[in-house]
């Protein structure tokens, strides 16, 4: 009887001791998995849920072909997309996104991901998903986030402050040209904005795949949006995962508007800035100052 009792207590202690590390590990991972399964997204007054039937249905119906079951960008179609003409689908697991309102090296906000889904990506296989209701899109934002553990362990960055857009003047356009020369945008984008700068031909993304600099002159929409605010945000946050760096440390917030105005003069679309450049007879910057 006594012997039985000892045996029993030995078993209990052995089981408890052995299960301690397993239990703590299991607790961590199940918590982590639960946090990801229950991921939410907040845009305006809408809340999206990764575990909603709609999000799962929409992802499997519309997104999985390119972005894959695991959100790693290896869907069936991905193999047929050849960069730089056709960028590969985003790997959601890494949590690295081009189009953000947040500084380089930080997670995007829910609004940023919502805008990316709504806007689509020009010159890529990613269409504009404005067929979805707002609620569907916010649910998909939550679903996209649930693929990356980073959205559990990190908070999104603080969006950069964009001062109100000033009036376009000749001085501002001229100053924008100075900035374009000083920070040497032309190294990749070319002095005329034709994406033919000396470094354009060797550009690679973070995964070693060829990538093209934006050509301002052929009427294409920038991938992260074409409003003045979008363009401001692109060079002040950088496009993470690509060669495009953040210029936040090297261009003052108000001056950044001048660069936006100068970039407009390089674009094919008619604009007030283009008229000013024509009147001023602005020449492309010199690559050898």
């Amino acid at each position, binding site marked *: 009887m006594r012997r039985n009792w000892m045996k029993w207590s030995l078993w209990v202690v052995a089981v408890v001791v052995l299960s301690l590390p397993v239990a703590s590990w299991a607790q961590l991972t199940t918590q982590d998995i639960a946090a990801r399964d229950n991921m939410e997204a907040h845009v305006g007054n809408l809340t999206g849920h990764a575990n909603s039937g709609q999000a799962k249905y929409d992802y499997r119906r519309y997104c999985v072909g390119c972005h894959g079951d695991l959100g790693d960008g290896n869907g069936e179609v991905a193999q047929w997309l050849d960069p730089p003409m056709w960028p590969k689908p985003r790997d959601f697991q890494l949590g690295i996104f081009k189009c953000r309102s947040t500084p380089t090296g930080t997670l995007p906000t829910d609004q940023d991901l919502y805008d990316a889904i709504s806007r689509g990506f020009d010159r890529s296989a990613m269409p504009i998903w404005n067929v979805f209701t707002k609620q569907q899109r916010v649910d998909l934002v939550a679903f996209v986030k649930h693929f990356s553990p980073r959205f559990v362990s990190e908070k999104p960055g603080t969006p950069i402050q964009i001062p109100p857009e000033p009036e376009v003047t000749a001085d501002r356009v001229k100053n924008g040209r100075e900035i374009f020369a000083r920070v040497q945008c032309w190294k990749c984008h070319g002095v005329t904005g034709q994406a033919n700068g000396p470094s354009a031909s060797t550009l690679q993304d973070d995964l070693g795949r060829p990538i093209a600099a934006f050509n301002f002159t052929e009427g294409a929409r920038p991938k992260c949006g074409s409003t003045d605010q979008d363009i401001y945000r692109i060079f002040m946050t950088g496009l993470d995962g690509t060669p495009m760096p953040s210029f936040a440390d*090297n261009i003052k917030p108000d001056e950044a508007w001048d660069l936006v105005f100068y970039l407009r003069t390089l674009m094919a679309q008619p604009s007030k800035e283009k008229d000013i450049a024509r009147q001023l007879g602005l020449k492309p910057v010199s690559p050898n100052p």
Partner: protein
Amino acid sequence: MNRQQVFVSVLAITVLVCCGSLLLNKTVSAAGEGKITGTVKLDGEAPHMKPIDMSKDPYCVKANPTPQKFQNVVAGSGGGLENVVLYISDGLSNPTESTAVQVFDQKNCMYSPHVLAMDIGQTFKVQTSDQTAHNIHPNPNPMTGNIPWNQSQPPGAPPVEKSWKATEFIEVKCNIHPWMHGWFAVVKGPYAVTDENGNFTIQNVPPGSYTVSAWQEVYGTQTAKVTVAAGGSAKADFTFKAK
């Protein structure tokens, strides 16, 4: 005491000792820190490092009257291997943190140093001495906790101050000058990088027995066991086979 009580108390003590040793698995960092010195050599002929074609950027060509060579393997005349990172990969439980701010310079369109070693959380400063634009673009694996970033460095750019959260050998590149390639070697605890003769000294090593690792970007990692006495100096030499 009957047998049952003896048994239970022995069991309880065993469990306590086991848990205690798990919790207190630390050597107390005492005064009298020692060091680990040694030499890293390359056995065989160093692979040919191609001269770099910098014709993309006239500034870079002008800055280097004799063309620079790639720095993936840099061996001195005596076979000493430069830019090897030495660190303690096992046995260190309470490392003192390195606090000095290190500098990673972009100079003459090259990285100086080619390999910058640092402690977890140690601040380093990226600066530019060049009159041409760079971008500084480290590419760690975000799953480690080290998040990639990408900052412009035009002429006169203010320095960028950063640190890393996890141990990792992080490649750093400039997309504008694709030959620019270096490393941030993030390790835990004291470290050293070999000089042009392959010599190194890891300072501030508390007494104890350790595994020392030597990491070279092409040849990988080697390890050696050393014991450091209080205030003493241990020796660890490494030889990588040229391939």
